[in-house]
């Protein structure tokens, strides 16, 4: 192991478990995940449907709390924070990219990108910062377009601009290319990898596409709520 990699991982997950209770039935979505992701790393999470990929992403994204286990984000134990504290963590440290883009239909591109800034403690120069983020994803000329006036690939780029506008440590993308054709999908991958290379933003992607996964530094394979294999680890 190289010395540099011994610094604090940005994501450190210990024996993470998540149980969903549906009436009398218990669904063990995660059954003890151990995982570390270093700052600046690009990681793909693969696995069959129902293996717990989205559940793990929700834990990493602080959208949901684990049933047991520990999760350190940037060295901070976040697995037992309160709802509002988690909201602040999500706002500052995490950028989400969803399969279905999840843009507000009434707002234009710039207003969509501004949204995380409005919920942050620093609400200065919203326009400038959102415009800069849209420039970075190559949509500087589409600021006033509503989502329905944009192609799927462009909408996903607006979503990426929204994910990076608050300069997060991690971008979490759950099947970001799932709704796109292979050409636009590749453009989105290029963009995400480019942002990682330029800004050192950690990138975690859930995907079913081996071609997409192959472009990341490491592939983690889940099965039945457990890590089954890791490939291409450093």
């Amino acid at each position, binding site marked *: 192991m190289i010395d540099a990699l011994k610094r604090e991982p940005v994501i450190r997950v210990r024996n993470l478990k998540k149980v969903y209770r549906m009436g009398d039935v218990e669904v063990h979505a995660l059954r003890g995940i151990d995982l570390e992701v270093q700052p600046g790393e690009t990681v793909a999470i693969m696995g069959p449907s129902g293996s717990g990929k989205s559940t793990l992403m*929700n834990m990493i*994204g602080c*959208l*949901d709390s684990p049933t047991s286990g520990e999760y350190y984000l940037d060295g901070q134990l976040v697995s037992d924070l309160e*709802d*509002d504290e988690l*909201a*602040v963590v*999500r*706002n*500052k440290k995490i950028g*989400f990219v*969803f399969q279905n883009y*999840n843009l*507000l239909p*009434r*707002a234009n591109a710039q207003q969509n990108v501004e*949204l*995380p800034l*409005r*919920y*942050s403690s620093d*609400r200065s120069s919203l326009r400038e910062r959102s415009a800069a983020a849209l420039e970075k994803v190559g949509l500087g000329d589409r600021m006033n377009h509503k989502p329905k006036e944009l192609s799927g690939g462009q909408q996903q780029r607006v979503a990426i601009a*929204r994910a990076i506008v*608050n300069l997060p440590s991690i971008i979490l993308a759950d099947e970001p290319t799932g709704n796109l054709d292979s050409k636009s999908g590749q453009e989105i991958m290029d963009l995400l990898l480019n942002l990682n290379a330029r800004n050192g933003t950690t990138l975690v992607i859930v995907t079913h596409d081996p071609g997409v996964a192959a472009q990341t530094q490491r592939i983690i394979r889940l099965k039945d709520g457990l890590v089954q294999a890791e490939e291409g680890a450093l």
Partner: protein
Amino acid sequence: MKFLQALKEAVSSISSNRTRSFLTILGIVIGVGAVISLMAIGEGAQQTITRQIESIGTNVIYVMGGNMSQDVTNPRPLTLLDVKALENRNRAPNIEAVSPVLNANSSVKYGGESENTNIVGSNTAYQKIMNLEIAEGTFYSDTEVSSGASVAVIGPELAQRLIGRSSNVVGTSLRINGQPFRVIGVTVAKGGSQFNNPDLNVYMPITAMQMRVQRGDSADRVQFIIVQARSSESMSAAISETSAIMRASHRLSPRQPNDFTITKQEDFLSIANSITSVLTIFLSGIAAISLLVGGIGIMNIMLVSVSERTQEIGLRKALGARKADIKLQFLTESAMLSMIGGVLGIGLGWLLSSAVGIIAARAGTQLVPVIGVGSVLLATLFSAAIGIFFGLYPASRAANLEPVEALRHE
């Protein structure tokens, strides 16, 4: 400036679905409109009644037969003898003027025209006590009263209706209750309500009325007596003089209660005021119930809106919105909806009450609806409060959504 942000979002959300927003606030619009217009009409009616009562004349005391608060055996009716007694300056130094009054409805005919109208019998002092102004001719004199002359003073509108003109009618002969009367004067137009319009009155010497219009009734009967005090300071002295003279005139022993009732103009005012304000409060209260119903309508639509926007709420939470942020957003929206309803309702109330004022004026009643700053302020604040109150539940439902669940919602 989180609040400003919430305001902007509320405007955008409300205006993105105008039809629904309008239907949502309709209940509030109607409720506020009803409250505002009823309060305005009530206030206008109160002012009209006050004006009418005040126009009767100042420092006036009314003496009526019977005791209204106590049972009296065989109360004596009021007569012209009582009036004579009250006119005695030596015994009643604080009394300025006294007149008997007799009211009746009777037919008045001129040529082929006929009107059924209010006949007032009185003596000469009546004109001064009631501020009755004469436009043409004269009021009847003391001589005419003591001789029971067949003369009449009529209101201008009655003259118009019967004779076809409201001036140049002195000397005309009318038939009142079948008896011939000569018009000697016309009063100045005052305006008034349909039911109590002095411009349609006929005034005649009470003696003439007793003999020719009220035939069959005991000859010197008087309905009530009006007494004018010398000044507002001498009112209470005038009242006790009136009471003492009336007791003596009715030969009441010291242990017998009054068999007459004395009332002041202010008493009528306060009774009228309390009746109109009780009516106004009662009707506004009923209208306020529709405000509650309107509030429930807002809550209903806000709940629908929360469930429609579940995914949006999940997204906002994922992007860092805290519970308070979501709550503020939905509360602002419902408060704004309700306040828009309130403002439109004030407009509607203004329209409604103006319409009522116009209709009343057409019908001959002077009623100017009064929309006070107070009721506008009250309506605005109240509707905002309704919006906040009925928005609380939907807003906290939204705020407490789990981000993952909300995001997954389709």
